[in-house]
């Protein structure tokens, strides 16, 4: 195990909040699990006192067994060059959470993306219009409950195939290269 990367500043921040667990997963990565309602406070504190200025991504995981969404906020510090991943869990129903757009402006895009792919509603997010899936009318497609294969079988038809075509190709000197 490498030397702990929890600096004094970070330690002070983590002591201010009811933290569930802190785990170092890589030489420069820290996994912090917290309660959902304390996340905005954590981001605020990290930004203010420890220099974690860059919200590089928000990822979302759908856990079908526990009926929960796991949201992971990845924060990078340019001063100490470390990544803090803040994990929170929110119930799938009603699937609402607060936007952190007022703390980190890039969150608007991540939240919009998660909203269309998972259906999570972020209160206070500036724009939750369809972002990539502008031609999509179905349910949020990244949910585990969405069966992509069944959707494809229902929506699209398959190409006809005839083995005779390969014979035609072989007669012309082509075919499959072994």
């Amino acid at each position: 195990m490498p030397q702990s990367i929890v600096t004094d500043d970070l330690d002070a921040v983590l002591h201010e909040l009811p933290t569930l667990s802190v785990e170092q997963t890589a030489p420069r990565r820290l996994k912090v699990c917290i309660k959902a309602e304390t996340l905005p406070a954590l981001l605020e504190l990290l930004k203010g006192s420890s220099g974690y200025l860059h919200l590089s991504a928000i990822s979302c995981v759908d856990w079908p067994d526990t009926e929960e969404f796991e949201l992971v906020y990845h924060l990078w510090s340019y001063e100490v060059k470390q990544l803090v991943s803040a994990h929170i869990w929110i119930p799938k129903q009603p699937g609402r959470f607060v936007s952190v757009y007022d703390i980190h402006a890039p969150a608007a895009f991540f939240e919009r993306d998660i909203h269309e792919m998972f259906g999570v509603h972020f209160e206070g997010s500036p724009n939750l219009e369809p972002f990539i899936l502008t031609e999509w009318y179905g349910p949020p497609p990244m949910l585990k409950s969405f069966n992509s294969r069944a959707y494809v079988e229902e929506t699209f038809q398959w190409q006809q195939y005839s083995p005779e075509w390969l014979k035609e190709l072989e007669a012309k000197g082509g075919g499959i290269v072994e």
Partner: protein
Amino acid sequence: MSQTVIPIHQPSADHNPDTDIACRTVEPQEKNLLRRVIDRVADHCRARSLFILHYCTGCGAIELPPTITSRFDSERLGIQPMVTPRQADILLITGYLSVKTLKRVILTYEQMQGPKYVIGMGSCSINGGMYWHSYATVKRLQEYMPVDMYIAGCMPRPEAIQQGFLQLMAKIDRGEGTAWKDYYHNYNTYLGHQQALFGPDWHTPTDVIAEARHYDLLSDNTLGEHTDLLAKFASEYVTHPIPSAKAIPRSTS
């Protein structure tokens, strides 16, 4: 050429369209023969000067630089890239088509002037390829626009693309590269497939029905239940009032 030019002035009632300028009655066979000879000459020339639209989807784009530049040099076949759809002859679909891209491809295809040829390149445009179970990827390109030729492979090598080009040229030279007419003949079917993906209010700025009438390619399946929806949603985009499928007399050609 099979396109007829729309007369600028309306012919008077006693005008016989089967007479030439000297009022000599032209035999229908003679007219057809002349037309066929001109068609053959035009096809022969056309096959030797083809422009590919410089538009790439998916990963097949990476095979085109060697195909077009000095290594394989498709210009010796008379095939070059062209920057605008209005001046291009070939639309090359070079890989997977997402539903979103398909929308743009249809817009592009309709802007191209006939005769135009579509080549589906790579497994993905044939049956979805490695994206066969993806909700976002179109499986069969020929449902949405008439395809002249598919080149299989993931990805096809430049040699295969050259071979495909040669076959397409031979096909055009024989006068068989007429798949583009099918878009006008069966516009109702193609539009129906498009509407299944994009919703019933889907329309393009191109007035395909008026073009079909201009090319004299109106057939039984040009108008139908799907084109009827255009009148509802696309009326401001088309120059002519859209006739209902029931109202228009169909030509037998």
